[in-house]
């Protein structure tokens, strides 16, 4: 009997098994798998994939708490004071300002993630289409772009290419990273178009990348490459670009009219989110000035000293919002929450002076960043195309590279081109400090200041509410969180 039963016990499940499948196939209903991509014969697929890789670069560049933020706040041009209960945020922005950041700051980790996410996406794409020569070439130059930021901010980062298929990569030296970027561009630049492509790489934007790399070569490797920097800048200057007569055309919401922008991140409020400058800098009630559809955060302000350094005749001084503020209908804005201690009272007035870094910075204190147009009716996301490279900077690069090689006349000529466009008198003679100052005026809010300060040896100097900082601060630390994820990483010296 028992024997008979046990046979049944086995039989019934066995019968059932025949009808069912024990190797289960997981279906994907609302996404596509790498196999789907590989098997697709859609003619536009490659273009879309390439654009998707670019969109990783567009990503979070222009938002709060990422690479733009740490570069700006660590420099002497911007600050986020703690305004009472606002913006304390665990003290991160005070620490970044004072060059006392730790190895576990969110924003620093986000910057690393941002760069390497793009690198991962690009590598996956190169692996997927190894035979499409022009695509692979462009992607390799595109991959050098986040490396350009990584070498500048972190220095000794691991080089990860489509061929790095081992486990966790270890650091490369800054020299190796330098060589990798240079080779990536030089080996592939001939495949890039020479037309003005603006939102994708072309020959000139690749030269602009080289110019930036060479300009900072001494910082990155110890060996200056001024002549190469000048040569690359000259290649760009010879291209189809000219200085926009209206400086602010380069930063307008519709800046496709700019004759100067070489490579931009094409932010779009609907399609490509990530540029949040209006939120980041404006006081809450300034919402009514631009009829914004979201309430701003009252954070980023310019530093008083930096602002006051501008010549009053400099048209670029309009890159700041200063003084009494008005609604779009012309009425005076009132800040109902203004502190009793605020000499301006409730009427909203942006003053260059910031009463204190913390804890009770006045809500209205500090001039604000108005370089980029805030479109009327915009929301949290702006539609401006953010210029990563534009001719104005390249001309200053040429001026500096030439000057450092002793070619004073060429340097002065280049510098004066930029000054005159800004409505200033040309200089009669040129000094390194003049070049430094001019770069500051020209490149405010374009995430260039920290790099410039380091190159000019000014980054460790004290400024408002910041003491002397040690030279190891010229690199950000490898984020602790990244070292946890990848134990093969070695921390930068000093941290």
């Amino acid at each position, binding site marked *: 009997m028992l024997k008979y039963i046990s046979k049944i016990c086995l039989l019934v499940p066995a019968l059932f098994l025949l009808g069912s499948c024990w190797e289960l196939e997981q279906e994907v209903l609302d996404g596509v798998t*790498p196999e789907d991509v590989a098997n697709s014969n859609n003619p536009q697929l490659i273009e879309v994939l390439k654009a998707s890789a670019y969109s990783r670069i567009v990503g979070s560049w222009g938002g709060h708490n990422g690479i733009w933020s740490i570069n700006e706040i660590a420099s002497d041009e911007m600050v986020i004071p703690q305004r009472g209960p606002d913006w304390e945020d665990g*003290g991160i922005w005070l620490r970044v300002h004072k060059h006392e950041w730790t190895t576990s700051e969110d924003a620093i980790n986000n910057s690393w993630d941002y760069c390497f996410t793009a690198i991962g996406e690009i590598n996956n794409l190169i692996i997927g289409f190894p035979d499409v020569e022009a695509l692979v070439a462009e992607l390799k130059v595109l991959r050098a772009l986040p490396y350009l930021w990584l070498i500048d901010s972190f220095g000794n980062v691991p080089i990860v290419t489509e061929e790095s298929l081992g486990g966790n990569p270890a650091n490369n030296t800054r020299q190796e990273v330098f060589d990798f970027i240079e080779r990536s561009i030089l080996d592939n630049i001939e495949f890039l178009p020479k037309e003005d492509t603006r939102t994708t790489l072309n020959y000139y934007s690749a030269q602009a990348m080289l110019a930036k790399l060479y300009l900072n070569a001494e910082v990155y490797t110890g060996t200056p490459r001024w002549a190469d920097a000048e040569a690359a800048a000259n290649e760009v200057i010879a291209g189809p670009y000219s200085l926009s007569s209206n400086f602010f055309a380069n930063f307008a919401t519709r800046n496709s009219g700019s004759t100067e922008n070489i490579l931009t991140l094409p932010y779009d409020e609907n399609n490509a989110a990530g540029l949040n400058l209006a939120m980041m800098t404006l006081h809450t009630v300034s919402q009514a000035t631009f009829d914004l559809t979201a309430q701003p955060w009252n954070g980023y302000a310019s530093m008083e000293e930096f602002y006051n350094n501008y010549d009053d005749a400099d048209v670029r001084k309009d890159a700041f919002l200063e003084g009494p503020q008005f609604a779009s209908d012309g009425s005076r804005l009132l800040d109902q929450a203004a502190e009793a201690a605020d000499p301006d009272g409730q009427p909203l007035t942006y003053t260059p002076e910031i009463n204190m870094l913390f804890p009770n910075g006045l809500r209205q204190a500090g001039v604000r960043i108005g370089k980029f147009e805030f479109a009327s009716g915009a929301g949290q996301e702006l539609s401006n195309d953010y210029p990563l490279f534009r001719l104005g900077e390249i001309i200053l690069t040429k001026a500096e590279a030439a000057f450092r090689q002793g070619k004073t006349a060429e340097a002065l000529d280049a510098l004066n081109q930029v000054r005159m466009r800004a409505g200033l008198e040309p200089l009669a003679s040129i000094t390194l400090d003049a070049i430094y100052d001019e770069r500051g005026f020209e490149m405010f809010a374009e995430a260039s200041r920290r790099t410039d300060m380091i190159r000019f040896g000014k980054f460790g100097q004290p400024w408002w509410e910041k003491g002397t900082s040690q030279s190891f601060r010229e690199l950000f630390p490898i984020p602790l969180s990244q070292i946890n994820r990848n134990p093969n990483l070695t921390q930068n010296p000093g941290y």
Partner: protein
Amino acid sequence: MRNYLLKLKTFLLALALIFCANLVANAQSRTVTGTVMDPILGESIPGATVLIKGTTRGTATDLDGKFSLDLQAGDEVLVISFIGYLPQEVEIGNQTNITINLEEDIQSLEEAVVIGYGTQDKKEITSAVVAVKPEDFNKGNVSNPAQLLQGKVAGLSITRPGGNPNAGFNVRLRGLSTFGANSSPLIVLDGVIGASLDNVDPNDIQSIDVLKDGSAAAIYGARGSSGVILITTTKKNPKDGRVNVSVNSFGTMDQATNLIPILSPEEFVERGGTDYGSATDWRDELIDDSFSYTTNASVSGGFNNTNYMASVNYRNNQGIVNGVSNERLNTRINLSQGALDNRLRLNVNLSFTNVDRESINNDAFRFATLYNPTAPIYDDSQAALERFGGYFQADVLDFFNPVALANQQKFVGETKSALTSYRAEFDLLPNLTISAQYSQDRSNTLSGDFWSKQDYQVGLNADGSAQRRTNDRVQKIFESTLRYELDLTDGLNMTLLGGVATQSTENQGFNARVKQYLFDLGWDNLGAGAIRVGANTEVASYANQDQLNSLFGRANFNLNNQFFFSASVRAETYSGFGENNQTGVFPAVSLGSDFTQLFDMGLFSQFKPRASFGVTGNLPPSPTLALGVYGNGNRVDLDGDPLTQNDVYVGIVQNSNPNKELKWETKAEINVGLDFGVWNNKLTGSMDYYIRNISDLLFNVPVAPGTPNVFDPGRFNTVSSTWVNLADLRAAGFEFAVSAHDISLGGIKWHPSVNFTLYDKTTIESLSAGDLGFDELRFATPGSPGQNNNPIIYNRVGQTLGDFYGPVLEGFTDGGEYILSTTDPDKFEKIGNGLPKGEFGFANNFVYGGWNLSFFFRGAWGHDLFNSYRGFYENQDAISNTWNSVVTDKTPFVTSSPTFNSSYIEDASFIRLDNMELGYNFTTRSPNLNSLRVYFAAQNLFTITNYTGIDPEVRITDAENGNGFTSSLSPGIERRSTYFQTRSFTLGVALNFK
């Protein structure tokens, strides 16, 4: 089923006895006849055993409950017994025809415990299983089955902070054991695995059985890691030919309670607050006592081999804020029919539920507490009429008139769920039964969200916005089992079970959101919203499905009611794991012995030590984690020219890093326990100690983006986290429960019971797998303003899960500024933990004549809460002139801007009079009315605690911290949008018709 078999067994035994008796029968002096009756039902009992005491001679009653027995000299006493009744001895004396009334054995009837794929006698159970019966359920307006059990089962933690009628309950058995798909226990409703609690109304529940340890849950394999709750709905009237109609109806009043003290308008102005010249009690304006009502009606009955139960349950619960409500209509039909002499049994259970929910933006609770008390509600200026619909609004960051917020945003949802299950059982042999069951659990939710054109928070900026969403879920299960019972040798009884199952789950949904309306038409006309791309708009849909196949078996042995042994194994194959890791095997063994059957244990009527070991698994939170799925990227315009639209596509990016090696997480649990009864089971109880080790825990860990994906060789990480089998956790605990039955105090019968749990909090043993390894993971920031970048919970290897870390407040300067131990986040100290050291429940039932009184205390101790209200709104800093401040007895004079520190972590141990009920049963002589009961109940009458926030209830998860994964890792945070606590009073009447 088990009961049936037992009856059958008894019947067979009786037949055998008759046969034997006839064999040994010799010349008799006389015969005694009789009838065995159930006096309460007035019916005869067929199949009852009638034995002559001290002999093996006896008989069984026939279908009419009659028996006839030949007597020999010296036969003096009959022993009559039947399952479910107390055995009775009768002196024969000179009687020739005896009527014996058997008394129902309440204890015994309760002893069949549902254990998954069947029932088992309580005495045979060797794992940690707790059965809860309706008389022990929580009282009052209980609309969710989980609430019935709150505090009743040691180790089962059920929480719902605040009194939101739309909020679900968080349920955790023996603490957190996974971050995978199911951190709440698996619900098995009438045999349907994974059914939604929406499908059952509390009023229809006959019993709830909680499978606590690994060995009991292992029969549910992959889904059993978080424990199993088996719910059985009222099946039938146990006796033939009767119809039972019952109606239960009650009304409930809710009122807000335990509001945090704030400054009055005068105090606020005196302190320097901005004076708008009015005086408004915002909380008074927002909240109001609410009235809810509920009616349950059911009909049940049975005749021959048919049993049925039909019920309808209507609940209309109103929140204490206008615009918050939950209206629920549930209908159930359970039907079973026997055929072929009841060898074939067919069963159909149908349940349909509609739930309509209305909610407000819970930020209204925060602003009602801290909005400027001198501000008026309304503003009749032209500008305010045009922009804000006549409400007062101040142009201050993140600051909204709470009355306007509650009225100008609206959120509704309607859920329609249907659970249908069909089951057939066939007795191939009297002790061999095959069964097949198919069930479909289907639910559809349609939601609508609305932001008025004049809503200052969202709608004004969007010029009116609305959204429609649907979410559909279907789960289909087919199961087949074979069950075999055998007495192997004398005294050794064996039950075998084998089965196969297959389950598929599909989820899909879609949503659309638009903005810029001319009129506030809301979701009823999305076409009237002009803008359909960009911020505050959306068009999206999703779909996924998965499949799980199972094969399982179990063997139970009972040796002379002295030794018990059980072993089971379940193999599961899940589609969502890596190709080579789809199948997991989950074994369990348990054994126990009732020492009172072996030795004379004096006072003890039961003394059953038991030990068990079981392995369970868990499913991942999404079925596609092993695959490299591309999702939507930015929209890309290939030529960059906005005028040409035929080259615009949505790009694709790899939104998750695939893990092709993803495999089963396993939880191995050892449980040792003791079931005991003293003084003839007047006092019964149990205690359990468990240790569980969770390994290969499914964990979403940070990985380095851009680096090669070690779980998908040849490709690269494109996001900064991957689901991997990473961590090891260890947890342990001790549980104790004891109840006394029918203690007489004069004419009063008292039935107290106590349970408590001591948790050895979950420890993180490791956060490493291969090259990946972490010392800690930080989560949960307090929020805006100013506390956005400082995580306050660090999960560290070697430490307990969910520890608070922060600076220690060492004192204040003369100016009232903090003196903090450090500002360096890496030097923060452990300053608390949100999970409790212990929980307890203490229930009391008193019966006096027709009166009954019950009250139930429960509590938790040793847990901390971050009091967000104090953490943001008690300092007299510069900004406190704009918003009101909370003033608790822990509020010091502080002028610093709020910064997280140890003073905001409060001990939240509490004791609560959770519910009490006073009822009276009227005696009725009506031929139609069986019983009439009137009752009054109160819930949440008082709480004793030192906590100064809204609700000291344990926070198992964090409502504002990302996905279900990180929210489980950050317990103990009371957020500012917490719905206020409520106190409820209920008056009801229950009628039972014949």
